[in-house]
């Protein structure tokens, strides 16, 4: 953007705040490491800001447009990496990103569905994922309080995550129909 004004910035920040979680999840499709996701998101934000003025209908197009930028940045990032450390092939990632872009308008509801699916978990399952994802308590310490092995607790956590994935996937597929 050659020139900006507070109104444009306000709109950009508002749209960015709204779409950032979905776009970050989209970036995660092509990049495994959390730090790398943060870096690529940064680049996406910068490019989006620079080109924001070119967007005809920001309200309608912003999310999908960010995905297009993110797709380019992800592929650029991956090409700069040694092939040995990339598990997924370029073709696979390209197809995933294409599909992610196409389904963006549906997938924006993922977070909403995830919340609903978490609501449907048992209390002990909710507690476990809270401990795992959002506390300083070590899993093995927590496992001891339950008189279970850390390994069993990890397995349980894995099963909960799978259950949530199935639940969200089901809701999304219903939404697509």
């Amino acid at each position, binding site marked *: 953007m050659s020139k*900006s*004004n*507070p109104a444009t*910035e*306000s709109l950009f*920040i508002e749209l960015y*705040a*709204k779409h950032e*979680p*979905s776009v970050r999840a989209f970036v*995660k*499709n092509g990049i*495994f*490491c*959390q*730090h*790398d996701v*943060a*870096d690529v998101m*940064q680049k996406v*934000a*910068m490019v989006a*800001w*620079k080109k924001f003025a070119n967007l005809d209908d920001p309200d309608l197009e912003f999310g999908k447009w960010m995905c297009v930028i993110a797709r380019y940045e992800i592929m650029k990032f991956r090409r700069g990496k*040694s092939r*040995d*450390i990339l*598990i*997924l092939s370029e073709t*696979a990632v390209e*197809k995933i990103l294409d*599909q992610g872009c196409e*389904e963006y308008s549906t997938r924006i509801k*993922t*977070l*909403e569905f*995830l*919340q*609903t699916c*978490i*609501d449907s978990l048992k209390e002990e399952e*909710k*507690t476990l*994922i*809270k401990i795992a*994802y*959002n506390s*300083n308590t*070590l*899993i*093995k310490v927590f496992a001891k309080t339950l008189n279970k*092995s*850390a390994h069993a607790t990890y397995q349980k*956590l894995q099963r909960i*995550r*799978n259950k*949530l994935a199935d639940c*969200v*996937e089901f809701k*999304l597929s219903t939404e697509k129909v």
Partner: protein
Amino acid sequence: MKSEDKRLIQAYYYGSITKGDAKKLNKLLEHDPKARSYYITYSAITEHLGESMEDNENEIFSSPKLSFSKKQSTAPWLLIAASLVLAFLVFDYLNNRDKDHPTVTISETDSILNNSRTQAHLVDHFNASIKGITRRLEDFIWVPGKYELLSGELHLRFNRCVDFIFQGPGIFEIEDFQNIRGTSGSIRTIVLNENGKGFTIKSPTTTYVDWGTEFALNISPSQQDKFNIDQGEVEVSPIGKPDNKTLLTRFNSSHQKLDFIELDASLKPSQPGDAGAKRNFKAFEKLANHADTIGLYNFDSPEQSILIEELVKRIPKNWQKWSTVHNLKSNRLIINHAKSEIGSHGVFHKCHRTAGRWPESLSVGLPHNGSHVSFSIPGNYPEITISFWLQKLDRLDAINSLIKSDYWNEIGNLCIEFSRGGKPYLHQWGEVSPSKFRFDNERLSSGWQLVTYTFGREENDSKSKIYIDGNLVFESKTKWTNYISLGDFTIGGCVNETGPSSANLNCKIDEMVISKNRWSEEDIREYFLDGFPFYQVEPITFAESSFSPTNPAR
């Protein structure tokens, strides 16, 4: 969608996918839109799960049923945050309008966006305690700000181009990925590539601009900075006098006399790998004192002060007679550091000591046909763990023996070999066709790897297991064997009753641990992480997935 296909995607996100499965996963994702859809959903869940729980942090214990309205309430918060940033922008814009800045430029927005960006990655740390930070450092985002390191040391990497090692106690401030302010503490800076040139450290008295180099700096509030340059060029200038620059190199620094810093060639703060070495040393000490440890070998040279006569009393019996005939040199001995002193010292044959896993440490290399090290451990052990750090040197031969009992004549005798491709194989005397299960195609690669063997009863069976880098790769049930009896045994080679055969494992070995209890998978993983040379964000996907906030494997 098949459950096997889902398992591949789950394994990828759990960081436990094998090379063989990775191929299958790629094929699946390239051809199956449903698999891609599941992959995208799984990705979003790993990314958002933490946030979703954070939103409900206060409710999860108090409210038996979470309501969706809580989630919806995040939108106003986002708007409030956006409004605050906007207010700041407008304020800044109005403020600067009168100062020859007629418009808010891209750079101002850059800085706002940059503030949410991590400026550095943690490479490693040792006992680092930072004032005001209670969360794990592995999960910490290094945003601009002041950090007071109360103790320990940190190894950060800025923008993938500068390594910054800071030893506390001390204070440093990250201004951005290229500018650091230091108030006190010891620093080593290494510019790794062109992008890092210009990395600047400002002490209270001096500015140091790094033009592609490695240098050490000690900042003390009450004294002059102490400075030493190892490579390249550093531009130094007193604060407030940028024109008074001096370009220092390793060759001219000894001739320079600067009144604002002290040039000290003896300055040697921590270097890359030291944090890991210290962490590993601590783990090694703990193992040495543990009652269950029966053999602990790091392959360092015996101290010169130890008398050879004292050492030979505790070497394998079949070597004791040779010790007098051939005047066994003490440098051929591998010392057992276990306090229990159950295992013998080792004696090496056709081997040499070579660089170990840590700065200035040693390992043993087994490069020749017949290279091996002899040990002896008396007794039968219903449970045992034998762990090695291995580094493959070159291509492997057809037979590669890691460990083998010298005599092959009784229950409990053990042999672990690797195929030419680096897959582990297990032989146990008397077990004609042990029921085996190979979990995946994990095999030896070129870097240092942790190979761990465990034996013990689980449920109703005695099981042997082999792990590589903490991942279970091989498991077998034994029909007759209820204990392991190593007796005289060899590592790295295959000694038969007729003498050493030509089979050897073309590798380096470091830190061998023999424990008379069976380590759990969790114990092995912890030992692996403690002993890993660097906390590397990449390319070690195992470590990465273990530490990642998306995979709470801690």
